[in-house]
């Protein structure tokens, strides 16, 4: 499923103009990205939490050449699914809210 499929599903449910619905969905993801960029976490109840984690620099290896390299410190984005989502994934039942 891609963003276009999500737009279709939301459009079918709410109507309005597809273009406007697409703009809102675009804005939702942009807002989440901007928040994470500031180092803030984003909690979507019933779905899960997006957080930024700081990773320290560490020694690694280039898997292709085998040469040792330093992996710089960096920030990574992680997602932790909510209990509700985890449960839905394991039962295959429709999750969250109607």
């Amino acid at each position, binding site marked *: *499923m891609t963003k276009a499929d999500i737009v279709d599903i939301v459009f079918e449910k709410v109507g309005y*103009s597809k273009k406007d619905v697409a703009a809102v969905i675009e804005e939702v993801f942009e807002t989440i990205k901007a928040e994470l960029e500031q180092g803030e976490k*984003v*909690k979507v*109840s019933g779905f899960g939490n997006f957080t930024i984690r700081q990773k320290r620099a560490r020694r690694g290896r280039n898997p292709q050449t085998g040469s040792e390299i330093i992996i710089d410190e960096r920030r990574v984005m992680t997602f932790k699914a909510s209990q509700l*989502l985890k449960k839905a994934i*394991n039962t295959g039942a429709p999750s969250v809210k109607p």
Partner: protein
Amino acid sequence: MTKSELIEKVSSRVTAFSRRDIEIIVDTLFQSMADSLANGGKVEIRGFGSFKIKEREGRQGRNPKSGENIFIQPKRVPFFKAGKEIRERINPGSSEEEA
């Protein structure tokens, strides 16, 4: 930021919809992603990331409290990989080396 703060922020930027409409759109958005994953599908949002399901086999485990042997049932777990754009945005100035 919580979901209601997210809805607040989006509705301040998109004037074509009421706050209530934005709320319905946001709920439907996450619901459709959850449904897709619950049905074993994957979700790919370009620039943001992709969600997939991984199958974990059942295994023999141990109750750490009682020490008793138990069988852990096979299960499906969600897996998220951040997209290129967000990886670059949270690490400004660094070059992307991973594929």
